[in-house]
């Protein structure tokens, strides 16, 4: 278990480690271990996310949950930023919303997202985000990379053309299943999720075939074989329970 010795609260003066701050001009309270995203959700404030999933550790990979914090120039991701006393957070300023749209559009350009013929058409978190943020077209040129489909596994297949590198598959396989079959290779735009040491999924020695990665994947990148277009509906109700049963509260794969 990690030791979150934060210095934003002096435990001798504040043994309960609670603090108060403001989100969108509303006073909220939080434990020092709760991220801005958690606190916002507790108070009914929606912040769009993609790589976040209840039941998995936070990663801050997608940067869609960025918020403005008064006094700080950088926009910070709410899921991995922890509040300080009297912090002022703005979740939906014009600047923030503008950047969120740009990030989403860049996600669309990076890979080949052909919604019309995708297994997750209609059940896709990327699509839902486009609707939520009002993205009707992408202003940046598409890259059209040449990426493969690995259908070597007997029950599942991975289509790298649809991956958004949220790394939920990596996290769930490591934290919940414990096999750590998935990891990433490459850097920047050449990053790709891989099984074992970039070997075909079907020949993986570590994969248990549990299918959790398929269920947590937000897009149609990971899917069950045989599901045709628009048929891949994910089930992730099990996740918070599994996380609880495993006894993990606040671990992170990278920290």
């Amino acid at each position, binding site marked *: 278990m990690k030791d979150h010795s934060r210095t934003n609260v002096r435990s001798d003066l504040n043994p309960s480690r609670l603090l108060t701050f403001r989100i969108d001009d509303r006073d909220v309270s939080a434990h020092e271990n709760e991220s801005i995203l958690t606190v916002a959700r507790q108070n009914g404030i929606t912040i769009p996310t993609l790589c976040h999933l209840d039941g998995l550790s936070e990663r801050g990979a997608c940067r869609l949950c960025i918020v403005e914090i008064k006094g700080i120039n950088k926009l910070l991701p709410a899921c991995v930023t922890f509040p300080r006393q009297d912090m002022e957070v703005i979740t939906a300023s014009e600047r923030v919303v503008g950047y969120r749209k740009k990030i989403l559009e860049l996600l669309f350009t990076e890979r080949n997202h052909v919604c*019309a*013929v995708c297994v997750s058409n209609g059940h896709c978190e990327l699509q839902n985000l486009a609707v939520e943020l009002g993205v009707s077209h992408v202003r940046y040129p598409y890259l059209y990379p040449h990426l493969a*489909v690995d259908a070597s596994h007997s029950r599942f*297949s991975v289509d790298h053309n649809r991956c958004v590198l949220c790394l939920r598959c990596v996290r769930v396989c490591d934290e919940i299943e414990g096999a750590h079959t998935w990891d990433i290779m490459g850097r920047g735009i050449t990053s790709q999720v891989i099984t074992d040491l970039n070997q075909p999924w079907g020949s993986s020695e570590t994969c248990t075939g549990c299918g959790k990665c398929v269920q947590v994947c937000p897009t149609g990148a990971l899917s069950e*074989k045989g599901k*045709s277009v*628009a048929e891949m509906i994910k089930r992730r109700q099990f996740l918070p329970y599994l996380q609880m049963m495993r006894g993990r509260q606040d671990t992170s794969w990278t920290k």
Partner: protein
Amino acid sequence: MAETITIEPISRIEGHGKITIILDDDGQVSDARFHVTQFRGFEKLCEGRPYYEMPSITERICGICPVSHSLASGKACDAVLGVHPPETATMLRRLLNCGEFIQSHALSFFYLSSPDLLLGMDSDPAKRAI
């Protein structure tokens, strides 16, 4: 004298086309050609995709007859897997196909052919618009 007449674009068809008629020196038709001026390459773009996506991808070949392409693709998938769909499925496919006949024939007649057939081939094109 030799002349080439080009008719472009061909209107009221699905897709793109062009016709060139070559007249010889006597003004007689020596050759007539039909060119299809659009090519999307479905044969190649489908490569590398899982077979169960094919019915959806091939549907995008044509917007008026997507059902035919989807059914043909479905039958190809059956052949690939070596299976026979149950009788109900076959009947449903037939029903779907018949539905498409009704839609496609009605569309083809009412929107694409009837302005020319009912108003006459030589009538004013402006009046023959939808």
